[in-house]
């Protein structure tokens, strides 16, 4: 059963909901995902939201309606099916559904990059021997971790056995383009990769991953089913980028805030969460600490992004399109 008109209307009325709808419309129009997937995603989203709101205490949904709706979407896409939610049905896996796969003439990048928070990396991903080595060399004091000064320059480290890059039921976001380095690298990397959720004080580092591992983990262009953040976008601005249909493009937050004609950032893919054991030693490079926020001004808030991502489509047009799924 499809999502109800009131639910779709509610989504369309909320900026963050409209961002998702516009991306769904674009993904279907461009042939990235089948119509049935878009239709099912909306229906499961509504079902989960209704189910959670029926739980005692809203099952922890205590934010604004907009926030709670988006949290439900992320839970739908990144978590297993709750034990007593739709017990007679099996929630589809909406991840890694893009149908525009790299084909003839495609040369796999030798490496991909992903950006992680230093704290979580040290706690959950760094191998103990390397953690001891970095500590012994004075790179791992509490203050050094907080300020993202964990190492000077690129270092090769091992990952902790059993560790996962990304949540086990989510996806890993990667780019073949190296993130910026040098002074202000954390802010620039946050901007060019569209990492709107990184806040001032977050110490970041770049992890370089072997291209083969990403390819083998079903690496492909992301769609709405991969639970992107509030600055995820299906269509690039630059016509040359649009023709490379096997790549997604991040939204450069600085370009968005500056009102530039193109806000394409780096190329991006998603893949299954990589198991540390399958990756081997990786190179890491500290990027420093994020110092400013994005998305808080009229030039780059959700409403501003809606204007860019919806390509001038009216509310009625968007509703008409999603209702026709």
């Amino acid at each position, binding site marked *: 059963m499809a999502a109800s008109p009131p639910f779709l209307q509610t989504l369309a009325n909320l900026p963050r909901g409209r961002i998702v709808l516009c991306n769904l419309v674009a993904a279907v129009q461009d042939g990235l995902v089948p119509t049935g997937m878009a239709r099912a995603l909306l229906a499961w989203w509504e079902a989960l939201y*209704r189910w959670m709101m029926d739980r005692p205490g809203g*099952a922890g949904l205590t934010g604004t309606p907009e926030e709670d709706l988006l949290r*439900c979407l992320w839970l739908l896409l990144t978590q297993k099916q709750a034990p007593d939610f739709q017990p007679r049905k099996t929630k589809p896996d909406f991840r890694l559904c893009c149908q525009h796969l790299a084909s003839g003439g495609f040369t796999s990048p030798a490496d991909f990059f992903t950006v992680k928070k230093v704290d979580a990396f040290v706690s959950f991903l760094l191998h103990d021997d390397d953690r001891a080595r970095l500590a*012994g*060399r004075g790179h791992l004091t509490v203050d050094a971790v907080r300020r993202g000064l964990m190492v000077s320059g690129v270092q090769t480290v091992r990952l902790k056995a059993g560790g996962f890059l990304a949540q086990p039921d989510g996806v890993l976001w990667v780019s073949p383009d190296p993130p910026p380095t040098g002074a202000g690298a954390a802010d620039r990397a946050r901007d060019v990769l569209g990492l709107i959720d990184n806040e001032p004080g977050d110490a970041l580092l770049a992890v370089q991953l072997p291209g083969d591992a990403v390819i083998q983990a079903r690496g492909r262009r992301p769609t709405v089913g991969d639970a992107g953040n509030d600055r995820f976008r299906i269509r690039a601005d630059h016509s040359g980028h649009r023709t490379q249909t096997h790549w997604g493009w991040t939204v450069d937050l600085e370009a968005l805030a500056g009102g530039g004609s193109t806000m394409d950032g780096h190329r991006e893919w998603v893949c299954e969460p990589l198991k540390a054991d399958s990756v081997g030693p990786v190179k890491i490079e500290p990027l420093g600490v994020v110092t400013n926020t994005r998305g808080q001004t009229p030039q780059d808030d959700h409403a501003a992004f809606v204007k860019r991502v919806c390509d001038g489509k009216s509310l009625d047009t968007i509703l008409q399109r999603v209702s026709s799924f």
Partner: protein
Amino acid sequence: MDDWEEPDLDEALDATAAVMQQAVAPVLWKNQAEVESWLQVGLEQYLFEEMGAWSFPGAVAEFARWETPAEALQAFCGRLRAENRAWFRQSVANLAASLPPDSRNILLFEHLLEIAVAVGASEMLRVLPDRIGRGFFGQIPDLSGQRRLFATSLLMAARLSAPRKEARVCLETLIDAQPFRETGFAYAGIALVSLCRADPDGWLQHLDRLRGPLHRMFQHYETDDAAKRRLGQEVLEVVTLPKVADSLLELVCFEPPGSSPADDWLLQALVVGDDPPLELVEDRDGVLKIRRRDGGGFFSCILLENISNRGVHTLGMVRMNSWIQREEASGLDAVGAWQQFLRNLGGQSEEIGQFFGMLDARETCHA
């Protein structure tokens, strides 16, 4: 044709009304025991039954934004009322104290350590010493596993350290544990800064306790001068300038080669070499001023007459080392710098002259 299963939406729905309803308060427990049970069941379901976010009813929504249970529960805790937050923190510690030490629970114990850091459960510092060296540590057959649990415990204690007795006791217990040695004393620097934060007044005792381990850490990991300087600066930050200045010249320094480990590295880090954070200035009134070179106008004064013989020795050696390092920086090798120093001995060098001037002033004071 697409084949995407869809859910049952079999009830009449006014979604607009549903989403606009008032936000509800997070789940509230009736007592501490309920929190402990909630946390233990949640962690077991998350870690062993792979239930993901659904393991933590009431906190499910937080898992949408965060990758780890520690991060999600930190955000969840931030939304609780003060009493519930206190119950939560205490529950983390109680669970860590009472968890049966079987091999299956090691993973759960490690997660409790991470959650303790995330939610600031300093209550954990009281219970951890009783679990070190036995219990979980004894359950891990391989050395690397023991070292991992130890490192996670020490990093937790380091991040929770604050000027409280239980922080000092916890850190000292960890330092005395066997795995501290087995890591090649890798965490000696972190332990020093954390102990100084827990007990700034006792910073010289902490340095005494860790002098040997620091020496071995520097050797084993070839810690470079920049890292030593960062370590020295962190000590300075947590102990504060007045306390450091009071005892700076009493450090065990510039001992002859082959003698016991010394604190040269700290003096080197703070007052010697290129662009050190502190400088020593003697004035003609018999006062030694120790001040930060990054400004701020604050400094600490020591009457030269109060400096012990060891202090005079140390001060002279600091001067000498500074001078020699500057000569080396200007192109002379170590031997050449020493030769130059010896040629200048006798007052030709401004610094050496100052040093002897300071000695004269001290003699005058004593007279």
